[in-house]
C-alpha cells in the first residue's frame, strides 16, 4: 500500500478504509486493553474489597492510634475529641518543658471530660502501651476528676507521685498526635528515652528481633528440608509410568485434603515424650526410659510438623517441571561419556531450576506466615513471629503493635522477593 512520491519519501501507511496505520493500530490495541481490563475488573474489585482494603486499614493502625485524641461512642458512633486542653498546652510549649500549674490545670479539665465520656480507660491504655502502670493513674484521676481543685499540680501529685514523671509527659506529648512511629520502634525492640532519642529496650523485654530472625532461619531450614525430601519424590513421580505415578500422586495429595489440625495433632501423638516414636525406640532398647527424645513442644516439633505440611507445595511444582523433561538429554550426555552424577548435575538439574524456584518461593512465604502449627507444637522456643502478632491481636489487644509487626513482616518479605527477583529472576519460575 505504499506509494513512492515524487521526492522519494514513502507516503504514510494506511488501512483499507483510509485510516493511518499507526492510529488504527493504536486504537485497536487500546480497545483490546480496555476489554481485557473490564474482564479482569470483577476480580480486581473482589481483591481490593476483600483483601487490599481490610489489610490496608489494619496497616493504617500501625502508625495511627487515636486512643489519646478521640473518643467514639460505640452505640451512637458520635466522635468527641479528648485531651484537647493538654494538647493545646503541648502545642504552646516546646518538648522538654517542665509541666507547670497551667499544664496540670489543662489535665484536670481534660479528666472531667474523660469522666463524663467514660473514656479514662481508653486514654490510659494508650499511655500504658509505652509506660506501664499509667492506666490506673488515669482511671483513678478520672474518678476523682470533679473533686480536683487549684493548685492542680499538688492535687495530682497527691493522687500519685508519678504524675511528675518526665517520661509520662513525653509519652503524653507523643500520644497527643494520632500519627506516630513509636509502634514501629516497639516492634524492633526500640524505645525513646527521656530526651526523645532512640535506644534499645531493656534486655529482658527484647523479643521481636529474636523472633524475626528465628522465623527467617526456621523458614529457610524448612525450605531446604522440603527441597531435600521433595526432589527425589518428584523425580520418582516424573519418571515412573503414568499408572504408578498417578497412584503415588494420590498419596502425596492425600495429606493436602486432610484438615491441618488433624495432621498437626497426629504429629503430637507421634512425637510426644510418651508417644509412638519414643515408645518404639525405648521398646527396641535404643533409648533409656529417662532419656526420651524431646521432639514436641520445641523447635524440632515445629520444624518436623511444618516440613511435613509444606512438602506438597514443593513436590507439585517440581513434578510439573520434571515431567516434560525429555529423558533423551540425559541419555545423550551418558553416551558422550558423562558419569551419572555429571549428567545429573549439568543436564538434568539446570532444567529443573524453575520448578525449584517456584517451590522454594511457595514454601518459604508460607512458612514465614505460619501460625497454627507453631502454636500447637512449638512450645516456648518454637514460636514464630506470627504467634506474637496473634497474641497482640487477641490477648493484649494492642492492635497498633500487631499491625506494626505485621507491616514489618510484609515489608521484609517484599524485600526478599525483590532480592530473589534480582538474583534469580521472577520469570525463571515455572509452576508447570
Amino acid at each position, binding site marked *: 500500500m505504499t506509494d513512492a512520491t515524487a521526492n522519494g519519501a514513502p507516503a504514510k501507511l494506511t488501512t483499507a478504509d483510509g485510516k493511518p496505520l499507526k492510529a488504527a493500530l493504536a486504537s485497536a490495541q487500546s480497545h483490546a486493553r480496555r476489554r481485557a481490563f473490564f474482564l479482569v475488573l470483577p476480580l480486581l474489585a473482589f481483591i481490593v474489597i476483600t483483601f487490599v482494603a481490610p489489610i490496608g486499614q489494619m496497616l493504617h493502625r500501625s502508625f495511627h492510634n487515636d486512643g489519646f485524641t478521640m473518643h467514639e*461512642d*460505640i*452505640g451512637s458512633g458520635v466522635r468527641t475529641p479528648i485531651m484537647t486542653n493538654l494538647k493545646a498546652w503541648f502545642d504552646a510549649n516546646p518538648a522538654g518543658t517542665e509541666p507547670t500549674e497551667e499544664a496540670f490545670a489543662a489535665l484536670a479539665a481534660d479528666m472531667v471530660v474523660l469522666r463524663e465520656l*467514660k*473514656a*479514662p*480507660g*481508653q486514654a*490510659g*491504655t494508650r499511655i*500504658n*502501651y509505652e509506660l*506501664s*502502670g499509667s*492506666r*490506673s493513674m488515669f*482511671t483513678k484521676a478520672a474518678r476523682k476528676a470533679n473533686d480536683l481543685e487549684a493548685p492542680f499540680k499538688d492535687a495530682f501529685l497527691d493522687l500519685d507521685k508519678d504524675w511528675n514523671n518526665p517520661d509520662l509527659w513525653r509519652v503524653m506529648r507523643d500520644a497527643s498526635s494520632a500519627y506516630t512511629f513509636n509502634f514501629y520502634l516497639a516492634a524492633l525492640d526500640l524505645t525513646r528515652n527521656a530526651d526523645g532519642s532512640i535506644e534499645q529496650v531493656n534486655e*529482658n*523485654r*527484647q*523479643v521481636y528481633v*529474636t*523472633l524475626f530472625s*528465628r522465623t527467617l532461619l526456621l523458614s529457610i531450614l524448612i525450605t531446604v528440608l522440603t527441597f531435600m525430601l521433595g526432589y527425589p519424590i518428584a523425580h520418582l513421580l516424573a519418571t515412573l509410568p503414568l499408572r504408578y505415578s498417578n497412584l503415588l500422586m494420590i498419596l502425596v495429595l492425600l495429606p493436602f485434603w486432610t484438615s491441618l489440625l488433624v495432621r498437626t495433632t497426629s504429629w503430637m501423638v507421634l512425637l*510426644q*515424650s*510418651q508417644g509412638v516414636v519414643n515408645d518404639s525406640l525405648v521398646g527396641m532398647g535404643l533409648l533409656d526410659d529417662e532419656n526420651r527424645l524431646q521432639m514436641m*513442644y520445641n523447635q524440632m516439633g515445629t520444624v518436623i510438623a511444618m516440613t511435613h505440611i509444606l512438602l506438597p507445595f514443593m513436590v507439585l511444582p517440581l513434578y510439573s517441571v520434571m515431567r516434560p523433561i525429555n529423558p533423551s538429554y540425559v541419555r545423550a550426555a551418558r553416551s558422550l561419556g558423562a558419569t551419572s552424577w555429571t549428567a545429573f548435575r549439568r543436564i538434568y538439574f539446570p532444567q529443573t531450576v524453575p520448578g525449584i524456584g517456584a517451590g522454594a518461593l511457595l514454601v518459604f512465604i508460607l512458612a514465614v506466615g505460619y501460625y497454627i502449627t507453631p502454636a500447637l507444637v512449638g*512450645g*516456648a*522456643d518454637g*514460636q514464630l513471629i506470627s504467634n*506474637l502478632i496473634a*497474641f497482640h*491481636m*487477641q*490477648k*493484649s*489487644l*494492642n492492635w497498633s503493635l500487631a499491625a506494626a509487626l505485621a507491616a514489618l513482616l510484609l515489608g521484609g518479605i517484599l524485600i526478599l522477593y525483590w532480592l530473589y527477583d534480582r538474583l534469580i529472576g521472577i520469570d525463571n519460575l515455572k509452576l508447570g
Partner: protein
Amino acid sequence: MKLKTALMATALTGVAFAAQAQEITVMSWGGAYTKSQVEAYHKPFTATTNIKVNSVDADNPATPIKAQVEAGNVSIDVADVEFSDAVRLCDEGLLEPVDHAMLPAAPDGTPATEDFIEGALQDCAVANIVWSTVYAYNSKNVSGTPTTIADFFDTAKFPGKRGLRKSAKATLEMALMADGVPAGEVYDVLDTDAGVDRAFAKLDSIKSDIVWWEAGAQPPQLLADGEVVMSTAYNGRIFNAAVAENQPLEVVWDGQILDFDLFVVPKGAQNKDAAMQFIAFSTDTQRLADQASWISYGPARKSSGALVGKYSDGKTEMAPHMPTAAANLTNALVNNFEFWVDKDAELNERFNAWLAQ
C-alpha cells in the same frame, strides 16, 4: 390461585413462628465447665422462658469481645470472663452496664447487692463462680506426696515435667509463693522490678521442664497422658477428670490463686434484654448452687453455700472440693484484679520475651 394463597399463608405463619422463638448466644470456656453451665443454667433457662441458648466455646471468651464490638458485628450475647478482663473491658466501654437492681434476692429476702460476695458485683459484670488456679499431679507417676507450692518447683525431689498456663497471670504469683513470699505480700513484691526478676528467676529453675498449656482441658489430658507429672490447672477441670473419668489425679491446694468468673454483655449485643434476663436467672441462689453439683467451683452468692450438696453422681460431697473450703485456704491468694488490669501488658511482654529466649 388457591394453591398460591395456601403457600403464602404457610410461609407467613412460618415466619411468624420463627420470629417468636428467641435465642441468645452464651460464650464460655469449653469442656467440663461449659457442661456444668449447660446443665445448671442453659437448660433450666430454656425450660422456664422458652428462649433457646446457643453455647459457644473459646480458650478465653474475653478475646473476641473487643474485635466484635469495634467491628459492630457482635455475635455473642453473654460471655463468661475473668475478673481483670471484665474490669478492663468495662473501662474501655466495650460492655453494657448491668443494673444490679434486676438481680433476684436470696430466698431469705437479702437483696442481691448484699448476698453476693464482696467484689462479685461490678458495673458491667455479675460474678457467677469463685474458681482457682491450683496444681495437680498424677499419683501414678509421682513417688511421694507433693504438699506445698514449693514442691511444684522442686524437680530434684519430684522429677518430671511441669505444666503451666501460658500466661504471666497466676504463674508469677505461684513462683513468688514457692520462693517463700507470704501470700499477703505477693502483689507488693510483684510491683517492684526486683520482685519480677525474682519470679522469673524461680521460673528459670524449671524452664526446660515446662510444657505450656492454653486451653482449660489440656492439663488433665497432659497429666493423664503422662506428658507432665504435675500441672497447674483450673481446679474444677481436675475434679471432673478425677471424679467423672476416674483419673488418678490429686489437687494440691497450697498456693491456690482464687479468682471470679463473671457474666458480661458486650456492647451492641443483639439480644440485650434476653441476655440480661439470662444473667438474672443464672445468678440466682438455686442456680449457683446447682452448678456446684456439676463442677467444683464455689458459688458467688453467700446464700448458695448452704444449698451445695453432692456431685451429680449422687455420691461425692462437693464441699471439701470447693476453693473456698476452709481446709483449702491455708495458703491461698486472691487474684488482685487492679494489679493485673494495670500490669498485664507489661508483664506479659516480659513473659513473652522470657519464653522466646
